[in-house]
């Protein structure tokens, strides 16, 4: 037993040193975007690299460890999102005078891309929340901005964007929810479908019909949870995006003060579309993050998995496939960042570029994630492995915020309309 003394001391000293390093390494090493040709920090300013670093660290430490649980148990991670808001992620491109961070669209894209590596679904909801906060910040008057934006920026309150209805998705301008003026209130009747966060959020930015048919008859109202006549449908069961609840939002003689109208009557559709331009960049950015994480997971798997006597990374088909995935990821990233810059600068091509970037990036990134799953073989199909969740979560990016078919409509209209 005497010999155990010095032995124990050596063992403890060794484990002390190893434990330090292990504890450091355990703090989420896999999705840190380590330098390689797909490193998302290339070409960024020092300040943008700092933003990106915070977002990556937050994603690795606060989101990635829970991403599977949030998906399987359908948990809306309110506390984690509020932590993100403490860092300034609640109103990234909202102006600082009402609590926002006042950053550019490009800064925003970089941040969402990094956060998405931790959990696509949660980041996508945060981006929708940001979009709503921006709409109120930009189109609201002083009272509305001061009433709603500060709480949204801290995520004391959460927001939802309500445009789609059971009868109007791509044909958004044909929406039927009416808002009849009665004194100093609008009385809302109708229902919205597929509303992200619906039922759990506090502030609803609702596009509704105050005038005649078409886009020009639509206004934008802010409806608060708890307003009599506001109710919600059942929580939808989805293939992905499970860390955010999706419900129908139902208005039955719901009275909303006229002072909650953003902008003028008839301006609502315009506000909605302007919100979506940025929303499309954000969603595309979320796809970029998922694809980046998936490429790294695939690469790591290829370096470890052996078949036919060698690691998969020695197989030329897989090498070439990985190269193609990396190339398309970088191409997508460049489009999204250029679109963000164009939107920030108010360039004439901004709307088309946002549509092109959304179309290209969401399609390409889904294929990348899908390929990454394939490279994992049977393991890729197991929920123990993250790659399947990236695939399921970003599949919907090709559908919402304007289907990729609608993106083609916007782009072809730009090409074919006489200017």
């Amino acid at each position, binding site marked *: 037993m005497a010999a155990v003394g010095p032995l124990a001391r050596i063992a403890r000293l060794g484990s002390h040193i190893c434990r*330090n390093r292990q504890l450091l390494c355990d703090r989420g*090493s896999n999705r840190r975007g380590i330098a390689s040709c797909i490193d998302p920090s290339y070409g960024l300013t020092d*300040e943008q690299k*700092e*933003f990106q670093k915070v977002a990556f660290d937050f994603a690795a430490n606060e989101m990635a460890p829970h991403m599977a649980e949030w998906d399987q148990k359908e948990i809306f991670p309110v506390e984690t999102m509020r932590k993100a808001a403490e*860092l*300034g992620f609640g109103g990234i491109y909202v102006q600082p005078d009402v609590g926002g961070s006042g950053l550019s669209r490009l800064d925003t894209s970089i941040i969402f891309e990094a956060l998405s590596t931790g959990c696509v679904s949660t980041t996508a909801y945060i981006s929708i929340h940001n979009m709503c906060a921006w709409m109120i910040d930009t189109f609201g008057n002083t009272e509305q901005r001061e009433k709603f934006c500060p709480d949204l920026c801290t995520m004391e309150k959460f927001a939802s964007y309500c445009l789609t209805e059971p009868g109007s998705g791509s044909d958004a301008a044909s929406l039927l929810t009416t808002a009849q003026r009665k004194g100093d209130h609008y009385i809302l009747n109708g229902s919205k479908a597929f509303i992200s966060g619906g039922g759990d959020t506090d502030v609803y930015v609702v596009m509704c019909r105050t005038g005649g048919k078409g886009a020009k008859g639509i206004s934008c109202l802010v409806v608060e949870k708890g307003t009599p006549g506001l109710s919600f449908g059942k929580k939808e069961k989805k293939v992905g995006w499970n860390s955010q609840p999706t419900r129908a939002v139902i208005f039955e003689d719901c009275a909303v003060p006229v002072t909650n109208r953003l902008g003028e009557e008839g301006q609502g559709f315009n506000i909605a579309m302007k919100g979506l331009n940025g929303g499309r960049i954000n969603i595309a950015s979320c796809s970029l993050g998922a694809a980046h994480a998936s490429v790294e997971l695939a690469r790591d798997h290829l370096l470890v998995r052996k078949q036919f006597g060698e690691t998969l990374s020695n197989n030329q088909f897989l090498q070439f496939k990985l190269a193609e995935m990396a190339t398309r990821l970088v191409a997508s990233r460049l489009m999204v960042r250029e679109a963000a810059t164009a939107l920030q600068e108010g360039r004439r091509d901004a709307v088309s570029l946002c549509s092109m970037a959304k179309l290209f990036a969401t399609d390409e990134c889904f294929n990348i994630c899908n390929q990454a799953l394939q490279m994992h073989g049977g393991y890729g199909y197991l929920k123990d492995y993250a790659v399947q969740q990236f695939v399921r979560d970003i599949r919907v990016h090709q559908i919402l915020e304007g289907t990729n078919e609608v993106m083609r409509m916007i782009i072809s209209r730009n090409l074919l309309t006489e200017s």
Partner: protein
Amino acid sequence: MSGRVLVGVKRVIDYAVKIRVKPDNSGVVTDGVKHSMNPFCEIAVEEAVKLKEKKLIKEVVAVSCGPQQAQETIRTALAMGADRGIHVQVTGKDYETLGPLQVSKILAALAKKEDAQLIILGKQAIDDDCNQTGQMTAALLDWPQGTFASEVSMEGDKLKVVREIDGGLEMIKINTPAVVSADLRLNTPRYATLPNIMKAKKKKIANVNPADLGVDLTSRVEILRVDEPPQRQAGVKVETVDDLVGKLKDTGRI
């Protein structure tokens, strides 16, 4: 105790990167490799900022020695809440041979120049694992040292430091000015917030030459060769503790 805290921050290869040895065995590949602030230095910065938030000290000054890129590390410290930075410019061969002896001489000189009352460092850097700079700095200044700190508190003009040692935890009380080196469990470093990152842009970083501080950077150490650790061999299972002790004696381990 009010006054100035110097925090040393070192730019090292990021902890998650797989290290590769240069083909000529002269060192480790650093070109194009992701670098970040040494994790123990992050903990040191966090502790200093916490002391400032408790109003126990007035100013946090982040110091880094190295080439131009060291400024990135100082900016990270500024984004976490340090007030200003000092970049001690060391480049080329001097930077390759820069070690605890030279850095501690620099820190000692700066501490006198800046009238610092506390120096907080990470206990060691994850690239060289020296665990010497804090101790050497204290010796050069003839200041008390509280190393491997897992808890630091101020009691008047004395510092109470709980140290992580092999036998457990040791609590000591030391006079200030003093040097403290941060261990893993001292705190959990905060994330920089977006507003703080933007504010950090406006904070000042002063450029300083080691020569101006009267520091001689000549190294007393020459690195002959760097090799990867030997590949891990398969283990052997033994039945009893006596077998284990016997095997260890056989291989000369004990």
